[in-house]
């Protein structure tokens, strides 16, 4: 009876209810579209961060994370092949990839600049596409002195594939060492700062340059990101049992950028959520308040007839709830429709600040977002009618009855 009454009263002033429903639909749609965009971005940033650069797990010699190194590879892994064998025995592991990162000077004979290099195993790193080759080719095992250079660094050094560059860095015994390398390709990472300084070289070449057989770390890529925690625990146990003196970090501990994105988007989303919440609350409470004002005499009649305050209150609460349910359902339907449409028509977004490539606008339609949106819609609409409902239930009966 209460809901029947509420629904009929909602349809009594169609235009006002329609406006309120539109506001609810707008709010729900905004939450779904932006929430889905946010989730999609999280997923995208997370997966690309893991698969292109961090790996799910990184294995280091114990002490690497804590202590400051005074010489290159002071905390390097010595027996990487046996560690790799033990780790790759786990069926959840897709592959492992050893790396050294080093800094030094790069020179074309005329001028020198600082570089940041990642030394990788070409056959392994090929799958981790942290860069796009612009000119030439990627590193290969049969080019032991080949390097690829960030396109802006290449431009500044005035080199193209086929030219050579000299790399100079400090070796493990703290002497300076230099090697001539052949530029096989140029690349972009999409981030200007990287393209200006970074290059990639084969791991073996870096080891020669630094007079060492050690590597800095072993990256572990899993088949599924969901396995991270379990695989980390098991790998740590296996390696400890085999007496390897190592420590492990997972991507969550390393992905500062991912968490910056998450924090930024959650901030924006939270702000947007607050704005939507305020608009919806104001709109719904306004509707309920106007409904009550128009129905003052009706409320007076209910109270005179001995309707309890709680019941009068629940009548208006039910109206808010019903508005929320209708608006929420419509909003979820329209919001997911819009999201599907956006995913369908391939909207190209311009590159974000600091990036050089754009991306396709994608909205992730997760059931959890839809359920949350619906729940927020219902909750907001109901909450908005709490105060007006209380006011109605406390009207002065005689005055309410003589209200025109």
């Amino acid at each position, binding site marked *: 009876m209460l809901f029947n009454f509420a629904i*009929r009263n909602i349809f009594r002033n169609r235009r006002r209810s329609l406006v309120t429903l539109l506001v609810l639909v707008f709010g729900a749609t905004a939450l779904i579209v932006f929430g889905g965009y946010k989730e999609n971005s999280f997923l995208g940033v997370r997966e690309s961060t893991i698969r292109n650069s961090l790996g799910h797990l990184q294995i280091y010699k114990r002490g690497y994370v804590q202590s400051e190194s005074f010489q290159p590879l002071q905390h390097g892994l010595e027996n990487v092949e046996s560690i790799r064998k033990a780790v790759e025995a786990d069926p959840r592991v897709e592959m492992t990839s050893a790396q050294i990162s080093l800094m030094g000077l790069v020179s074309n004979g005329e001028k020198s600049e600082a570089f940041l290099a990642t030394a990788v195993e070409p056959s392994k790193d090929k799958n981790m596409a942290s860069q796009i080759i612009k000119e030439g080719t990627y590193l290969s095992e049969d080019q032991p002195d080949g390097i690829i250079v960030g396109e802006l660094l290449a431009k500044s050094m005035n080199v193209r594939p086929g030219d050579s560059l000299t790399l100079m860095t400090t070796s493990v015994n703290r002497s300076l060492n230099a090697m001539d390398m052949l530029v096989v390709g140029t690349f972009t990472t999409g981030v200007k700062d990287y393209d200006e300084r970074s290059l990639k070289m084969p791991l073996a070449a870096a080891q020669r340059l630094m007079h060492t057989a050690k590597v800095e770390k072993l990256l572990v890529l899993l088949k599924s990101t969901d396995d991270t925690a379990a695989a980390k625990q098991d790998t740590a146990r296996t390696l400890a049992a085999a007496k390897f003196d190592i420590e492990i970090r997972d991507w969550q501990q390393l992905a500062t950028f991912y968490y910056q994105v998450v924090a930024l988007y959650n901030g924006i989303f939270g702000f947007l959520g607050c704005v939507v919440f305020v608009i919806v609350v104001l709109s719904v409470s306004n509707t309920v308040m106007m409904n009550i004002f128009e129905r003052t005499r009706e409320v007076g*009649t209910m109270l005179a*007839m*001995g309707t309890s305050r709680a019941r009068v209150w629940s009548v208006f609460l039910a109206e808010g709830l019903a508005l929320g349910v209708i608006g929420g359902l419509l909003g979820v339907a329209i919001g997911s429709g819009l999201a599907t449409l956006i995913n369908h028509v391939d909207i190209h977004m311009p590159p974000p600040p600091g990036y050089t490539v754009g991306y396709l606008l994608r909205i992730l339609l997760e059931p959890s977002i839809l359920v949350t949106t619906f729940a927020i819609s219902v909750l907001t609409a109901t909450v908005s009618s709490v105060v007006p409902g209380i006011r109605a239930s406390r009207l002065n009966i005689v005055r309410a*009855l003589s209200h025109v």
Partner: protein
Amino acid sequence: MIQPEALIQLRGVSKDYPLGKVTVPALRGVDLSVSSGEFTALTGPSGSGKTTLLNLAGCIDKPSDGTVWIDGQDTTPVALHQLAPFRARRLGFVFQTFNLFPVLTAFENVEYPLLLSGLGKKERREKVSHWLAEVGLADRSGQKPDQLSGGQRQRVAIARAMIAEPALVLADEPTASLDSHTAAGILDLLERLNLGTGTTFLFATHDPRVMERARRQVSLRDGAIEDDSRASLRHAGGYAHAV
């Protein structure tokens, strides 16, 4: 002294309305007692305090001074909202403007008071059908108020006021919105209900036809009772029968 058979007793009741800096006295020390089964009209010129008195007797307003006893109980110290269950059980209201719920059908309007008492669905249906038939609207149960004439609306309102079997029905100008023919029909109905069920009726009215039918007429002037007269023998038989 409280008369044991008195359904309502007002003793020394005053009501002042604040109006800006001054207070308007609407009732000044009214003593009135109404017995069970009476059919009483409150009359008097506009502004004499009829509605005010009715509101006090109906426990929807509080006196500024004096006491209102109903069923031998002093209701004055009890907050109005705490008297809600009492009103639902013992009182019925009929208004000049009918005050039906526009979104509810005739049936649902009449059913409303039973929802407050938490009666089962089957019993509710039986009672509503009975009362709709009683007011001559058995065939209109599915219609909304705006599909009914003024007289029909007031009949629905009367069925609604009667359905919880109240001891007292309060009606403020029940015929004032109706033409004289329809008003006469409504009065017939009210009188029949009074005699048939023994329910006490208290009206506030300007309508001479209501005054003529009332077996007791209390006339107010400037917030005080000017005259209180019992009617002729014409109704005595009926009255005795009802008691």
